[in-house]
């Protein structure tokens, strides 16, 4: 029994098995029933064909062949009916019954020779002799087969579900194979050489369709076809040189009886030569059949290359959007990024040709979902996933308007949701394939890495900017130097004091001729100490507290950070405080002494005056007058001492301090003019009131001005006296500056001490400035001097602004 007889039986058994599988499947819909009926029909067809082929003669074969006359059209109508039901195609209500009637009309024709007029014997077996209506019969069957094919193609085009399309593609391929097989059955009847292949093609069709309608998860039909074709071509490609090589070698040897070892040798040689050849052929075929995959790989490579060039974080996302659009050939692409400080995804970047922008609120179920899931979501699945079914209609509408087809999460390695990639339809209007989805996943990974890097870069930049800003804003000078004393960084305060010094040796920058003696730089760097050192130094005529701390560079080398705090002002303030305390002590002492001296002195003066009123000799009178005058002088000293010690009554009233200054300047105007002293007055006319004792304050200013006059006169017989009044925080500040010789540094601390004077003996008591100090302190103010030897002196008096009692009360409330 050869294939000619076996094949119809195989068809019968195979179709019955498939029919049983279809009928027993857990879902038995109308379309399935029609397909099962079709399978049963084919099984019956197989039986008839077997009986026909196994007939002993043409007469008996003709008997069986005539059964096919109604059978063929009926099976075709059932196939068409199956296609209509399966695709849910709405068709005219009457056309299917008409087709069935038409098919049934072939039953009486079976008894006539109108379709098949007899049988003939062909090399392979029996073949029918066609009658006058054979063409109509064949056209009817084929026409319905074509109609079924077009119905499935229609269903394929209409469906938006990839799975359903794939299933319909399987059936379509099956029908095409079946129709091609049918042609091979007709050709021999028409006298053309061909082996009847309808049975085999029908078996393929039935298998494909059964799988398609019963299984949901099907391999992509294109992949199946491609793989089949690729393997066939590769095999053919490899076999061809193999056979040619074999033939050539056997021909070259030129003998018909080739020894066995030659075959072994040839096989060995060819086996060694085949793998590289196989690879080459495989490469050609792959390029031919898997062009898309190559395109994808190229797209990923290109994307990777392009994104490496993107450095500007601001431009990064828009550029990536465009790259994704180009890589996937997608119309609309949008990347959503989180809003800093918020929960929502509102910062959207879309490609220029993209649709409207998409934004998602903080509580969008989509964000909740993607925080938990890493899968790409097709927009049509938004209704499918239960967690997304509650999605806001507004969000849905946005996605719809954008034309979104897929949403992919951009997830960091830590699982954080860094953003969302939204993809619209493809430019080709084709559906996304499995490979497209793989490409989307790959691109999402790339984008996330890029975004992470950009974010890290941004963070690093911001941190650096912050650090710099903090360093630059520091009032203290900060300098970082390497192990060779070379300055790597200096903040503004440092540069302002020591000049532009980056790259310079540190001790040169601070005006030294060698490393500072007290600097512990060497200890920190060379001895690799981790401790922090503090020391003080006098640099550029200022006092500094310096903190040195080691820094370990990322490269492992050591640097040193030094913080220079200018302590000059603090030191002066401290000295002033110390001085005030000391003066206060001296004042108390002076007051005690003055009281003690004042009493006997009063007695001396009184008795001297009484004695002078008597009639005395000239000599005695002269001596007594000396006693009286000296005692008087001593009384004045005592009075001044008491003034310094603030032990007398004051008569303070609110007033404008400018009045006192002007009056004092007027008082000395003539003398100053005579002495060549120019007065520059800068008095603020809007000064607030100050409570003061007019005469005492006049004494203060007079003392200072007299000292200045004297100093300028001695130094260069004239000069400029600058008098200024202004507001200084809550005080009124009066400064009196001269361009005299200045006060040596060592004397600065003692100018307000009682009896300190640089004048010749007898020309001053040394109490002038100490009295000024006493008066000013008594007024709740401050007096101090700033002077640089050789560059004049500035005396500054600060008095508190007068606050009326009512105002104080209001403020207190």
């Amino acid at each position: 029994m050869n294939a000619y007889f076996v094949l119809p039986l195989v068809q019968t058994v195979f179709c019955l098995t498939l029919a049983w599988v279809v009928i027993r499947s857990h879902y038995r819909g109308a379309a399935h029933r029609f397909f099962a009926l079709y399978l049963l029909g084919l099984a019956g067809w197989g039986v008839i064909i077997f009986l026909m082929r196994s007939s002993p003669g043409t007469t008996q074969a003709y008997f069986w062949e005539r059964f096919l006359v109604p059978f063929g059209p009926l099976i075709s109508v059932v196939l068409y009916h199956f296609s209509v039901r399966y695709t849910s195609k709405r068709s005219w209500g009457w056309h299917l019954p008409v087709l069935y009637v038409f098919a049934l009309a072939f039953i009486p024709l079976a008894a006539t020779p109108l379709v098949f007029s007899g049988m003939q014997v062909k090399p392979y077996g029996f073949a029918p002799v066609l009658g006058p209506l054979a063409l109509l019969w064949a056209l009817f069957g084929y026409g319905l087969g074509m109609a079924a094919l077009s119905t499935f193609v229609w269903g394929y085009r209409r469906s938006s579900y990839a799975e359903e399309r794939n299933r319909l593609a399987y059936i379509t391929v099956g029908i095409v194979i079946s129709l091609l097989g049918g042609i091979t059955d007709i050709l021999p009847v028409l006298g053309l050489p061909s082996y009847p292949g309808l049975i085999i093609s029908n078996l393929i069709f039935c298998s494909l369709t059964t799988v398609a309608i019963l299984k949901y998860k099907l391999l992509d039909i294109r992949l199946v076809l491609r793989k089949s074709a690729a393997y066939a071509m590769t095999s053919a490609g490899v076999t061809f040189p193999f056979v040619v090589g074999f033939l050539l070698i056997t021909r070259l040897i030129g003998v018909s009886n080739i020894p066995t070892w030659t075959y072994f040798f040839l096989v060995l040689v060819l086996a060694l030569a085949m793998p590289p050849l196989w690879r080459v052929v495989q490469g050609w075929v792959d390029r031919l059949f898997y062009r898309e995959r190559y395109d994808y790989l190229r797209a990923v490579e290109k994307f990777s290359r392009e994104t490496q060039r993107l450095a500007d974080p601001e431009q990064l996302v828009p550029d990536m959007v465009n790259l994704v659009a180009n890589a996937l050939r997608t119309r609309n692409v949008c990347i959503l990024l989180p809003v800093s400080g918020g929960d929502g995804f509102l910062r959207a970047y879309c490609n220029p040709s993209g649709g409207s922008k998409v934004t998602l609120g903080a509580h969008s179920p989509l964000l909740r979902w993607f925080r938990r899931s890493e899968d790409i979501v097709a927009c049509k699945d938004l209704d499918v996933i239960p967690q997304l079914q509650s999605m806001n209609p507004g969000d849905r509408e946005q996605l719809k308007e954008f034309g979104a087809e897929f949403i992919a999460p951009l997830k960091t390695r830590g699982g954080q949701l860094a953003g969302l990639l939204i993809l619209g339809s493809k430019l080709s209007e084709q559906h996304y394939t499995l490979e497209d989805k793989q490409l989307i996943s790959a691109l999402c990974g790339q984008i996330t890495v890029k975004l992470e890097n950009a974010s890290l870069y941004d963070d690093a930049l911001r941190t650096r900017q912050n650090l710099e800003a903090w360093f630059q804003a520091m009032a203290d000078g900060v300098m970082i130097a390497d192990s060779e004393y070379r300055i790597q960084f200096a903040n503004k305060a440092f540069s302002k004091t020591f000049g532009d010094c980056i790259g310079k040796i540190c001790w040169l920058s601070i005006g030294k001729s060698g490393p500072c003696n007290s600097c512990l730089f060497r200890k920190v760097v060379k001895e690799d100490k981790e401790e922090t050192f503090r020391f003080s130094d006098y640099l550029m005529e200022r006092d500094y507290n310096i903190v040195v701390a080691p820094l370990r560079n990322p490269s492992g080398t050591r640097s040193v950070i030094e913080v220079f705090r200018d302590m000059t002002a603090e030191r002066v303030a401290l000295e002033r405080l110390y001085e005030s305390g000391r003066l206060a002590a001296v004042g108390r002492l002076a007051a005690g002494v003055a009281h003690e001296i004042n009493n006997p002195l009063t007695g001396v003066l009184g008795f001297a005056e009484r004695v002078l009123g008597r009639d005395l000799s000239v000599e005695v009178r002269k001596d007594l007058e000396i006693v009286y005058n000296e005692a008087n002088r001593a009384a004045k000293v005592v009075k001044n001492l008491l003034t310094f010690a603030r032990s007398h009554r004051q008569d303070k009233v609110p007033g404008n301090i400018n009045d006192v200054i002007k009056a004092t300047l007027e008082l000395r105007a003539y003398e100053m003019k005579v002495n060549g002293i120019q007065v520059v007055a800068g008095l603020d006319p809007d000064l607030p009131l100050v409570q003061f004792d007019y005469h005492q304050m006049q004494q203060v200013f007079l003392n200072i001005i007299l000292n200045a006059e004297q100093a300028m006169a001695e130094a260069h017989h004239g000069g400029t006296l600058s008098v200024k009044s202004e507001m200084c925080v809550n005080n009124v500040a009066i400064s009196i500056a001269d361009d005299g010789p200045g006060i040596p540094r060592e004397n600065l601390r003692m100018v307000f001490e009682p009896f300190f004077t640089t004048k010749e003996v007898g020309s001053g008591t040394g109490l002038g400035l100490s009295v000024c100090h006493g008066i000013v302190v008594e007024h709740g103010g401050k007096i101090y001097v700033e002077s640089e030897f050789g560059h004049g002196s500035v005396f500054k008096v600060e008095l508190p602004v007068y606050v009326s009692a009512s105002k104080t009360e209001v403020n207190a409330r």
Partner: protein
Amino acid sequence: MIERDELLRTGDEQRIWQKYCGFFDLSLSEFMEIQEQLLAEQIELVAGSELARKFMPEKPRSIAEFRQTVPLTRYEDYMPYLVEKDESALATKPYFWAHTSGRGGNFKWVPYTLPMVERFACFSIGLMILACTSKKGEVNVREGFRVLQNLPPTPYLTGHIGEVVSQKLNLRYIPPLEKQKGQADFQRGVEESFQMALRTGVDMLGSLTTILVKIGERFSENSGKMKLSIKMLHPRVMARLASGYLRALRERRKLLPKDLWMIKGLAGYGTDTEIYRDQLIHYWGRTPLENYASTETGLVAAHAWNKRYLTFVPFFCFLEFIPEVEYTRSLQDSNYRPATVLLNEVQPRQRYEIVISSFYGMPFLRYRVGDLIRIVAMEDDEAGIKLPQMAFVSRVDGLIDLGGFTRLDERTIWKTIANTNVKYVDWSARKEYEAGKPVLIIYLEPKETVDAGELERALHKELLSLSKDYSDFNAMINTVSMRLVVVDKGSFDRYYQERRKAGADLAHLKPPHMNASDSAIEDLLGKRVEVKA
């Protein structure tokens, strides 16, 4: 515009299941997230409407504030707007108005917005899928499914939803919806539908449980004595009857509905489905699917594929629960405002009154449905569902409180009667007084002659075993606190006919099972009843 659902056509079981039944896989936290998100959107949506402003003058800024500031409401609070169908007071224009008949003859109109209708239609498909399977993930429903539905037609919600589902899915209703719509007599419609089903066959049956039980009973009572009619001469009917008889013969029993219709799914509607569960399985060969839904609430809970407990559905309304202590106090003091808990705060084996706030622009805010439910478990281990499971107990006003702590619900009494295996037409129960003592009176019309004393003892015995409250109460007063009143034959039918003639609504054609009024009992018994206090 209702869009056609394409997913079922593709046959992707996994996605179909996920879409329609995937909510069973939600965790409790996901459930609460969905609830809170939908409520937040609802507040945004309705805050400006006249009706919502009545209860919510200021838009709450949070869910907690919403629960604090918005009072608990009842239908009476909405009546001026809803009974008049005042659409200007609503936040969203309704897609349709659904009619429902409240207890005591108070009709209700409920506006249904399009998103809610879509949601309901979607879950109705889900319920069909669940009814037709006993395995998770198995989808036996396809386009062209033959559905026999004996539920009230439009303007009742069931009718509306049936129409919408047919727009979404190509179903074959038996009888067709157009025919159902024009059917004035519900009972006649039921008979016709089953006659038609003899010819067409049925894939799924959705009906009031009482109807399903009655048909089953009729089969077992009249087996072998089927009335022949001309309609039975149809070849399909004859084939069906013949195969049905053969099947019954093979199993050596009377012909049952399950022999004629090998249905894939059975959905029972009514609070008695659980009581008749075994009978339904016996008659129809399928375990009935139950759900807890109402016109005002939408679908609140549904059976899973194992048809064991009711699982809450998050998508229809925001769920709050008044604990038993709180609602009892509120019953005693109408001014008392009971506290509520959320689903993630409920306790197993506790009873709660349900409070809902609608989603999708529907009108109800913190609405007391008046139903009592019991949390039976916090999870369903068998099905792997991680959400609290519930069972319906009764209406709040459907409880019979015998002695302050003895609360009997409709289900308990119903189950008591069913457990005695007495064949009855219908029943009604309420509290009356005998010699100043409260007594539970059950009015029951048996189908056959019964020994009333024996039946009363049987009922008492069953009730003692089913209700611990009743058992404790009887022990306390040391007497039988239940009486059976056997009602004359035909009393319930007479009541039904009289009410139908009077033009009563479908829901009020029968006397209520629980706490029927004096006039209802008078009409039932056909005489005046003196209630002794």
